[in-house]
């Protein structure tokens, strides 16, 4: 059972993101805002911070691929960006000490990087023609606010869970 706990958690978050956009009204933060949930990615970043680089990148690649196939239908965007940002975060954590506030800030930074990265890629392949400043106002700030709220709520349970998982890994 314990073995399947992490994949099940990520799968749940994967579906939760889709449910979020389906049921939560889009104008939750005012008329001109588009909010993108990155709950799954926040959990992946916490996994990278608390368990380790290798685990984090493997899970990020698997769920990035799943995300691309199921939701985006353009394979490569999240498959590349999820593991890449997890790697960057693990590099940052080398020079920081691991506590919950630092984890919160670093994963928020990771989500910001992801949002900008996805925007740049979609701009490159002509999925969007939004200019950068309207992107920042329309999507970037609202997305960061909602995800910050999510991390404040779910950050501590994630930390407990992943620390336990890391201990179990060390015991093996």
């Amino acid at each position, binding site marked *: 059972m314990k073995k399947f706990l992490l994949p099940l958690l990520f799968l749940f978050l994967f579906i939760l993101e*889709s449910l979020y956009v389906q*049921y939560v009204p889009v104008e939750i933060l005012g008329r001109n805002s588009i909010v*993108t949930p990155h709950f799954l990615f926040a959990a992946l970043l916490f996994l990278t911070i608390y368990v380790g680089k290798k685990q984090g990148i493997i899970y990020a690649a698997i769920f990035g691929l799943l995300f691309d196939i199921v939701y985006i*239908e353009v*394979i*490569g965007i999240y498959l590349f960006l999820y593991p890449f940002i997890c790697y960057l975060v693990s590099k940052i954590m080398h020079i920081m000490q691991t506590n919950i506030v630092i984890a919160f800030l670093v994963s928020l930074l990771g989500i910001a990087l992801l949002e900008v990265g996805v925007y740049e890629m979609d701009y490159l*392949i002509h999925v969007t*023609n939004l200019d950068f400043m309207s992107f920042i106002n*329309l999507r970037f700030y609202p997305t960061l606010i909602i995800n910050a709220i999510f991390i404040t709520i779910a950050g501590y349970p994630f930390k407990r869970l992943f620390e336990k998982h890391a201990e179990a890994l060390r015991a093996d």
Partner: protein
Amino acid sequence: MPQFFLNKRLIILLVSIIVLVALIGFSLRERSKLSWPEQFVKDTTGWVQSLVSKPTNFVAGFFENLQDLTNTYDENKELKSRIENLASLEAQVQELKKDNKELRDVLDEKKTLRDFEPLPATVIGRNPDRWHEMIIIDKGKLNGVKKNMAVVTASGLIGKVKNVTQFSSTVQLMSSMDPKNRISAIIQGETPVYGLVEGYDKEKKLLIVKAIPSGAKIEKDQTVITSGLGGIFPKALMIGKVVEVKQDQYGLNQTALVKPGADFYDIQNVIVTKTNMIPVDAAETTDGKEEES
């Protein structure tokens, strides 16, 4: 220089960028259907999603019903006033229908562009990154859904089927940007005016109808429907209402901004329109650019 190439991380990064570009190129090219691993993954997750989304749909519906209860009195009043006109309207419709059928029999025209077979479906997922606006529905190839079929809600057209797998399919909403996604439309004035729905203004939340002849008179609040030309979308599906008309860049055409009839953000149940005018297979083999123009 040799040391530069020996750097393992750099090589991994370069290789992964090459793989990334190859994969994006592979998935962006015009594909008539998805490769089988993709179909398999989509079907499996579609099954899990429908397991989760059916109960949530039920719960959300319950709360919506509660909300509806609060406005019951006002709604009832308005509906009562409307129902008085309904009886006479119904008689008229009957008469017109009969007329239409008789005239068609005289002309020996059995099929119209209007005909379609409705297939109700439930939304089981939606793309969380709101760049590619797509929803996933629970009807697939086994239910007779085919690529490029129009998808509507009770209040209007929302998009077309982008990809089909065995048990589920993805619908590309009209609010997503795709230069290949053009829909021939009629603006219903005194004389019908033809135009093409091309794109969506994300900030104003309005559809953009282009290529309207410059002489045509268009006013606010005129209804826009699909024309059925192109043979893939049926005729007379509601698109929206005109909000604003402006001259094109060079003054040759007009552009209308249209408020969509359907809400693109609150979609739970949809109807897939199965046309039987021409086999959709035949259209599938043509280049995607001409499919809906």
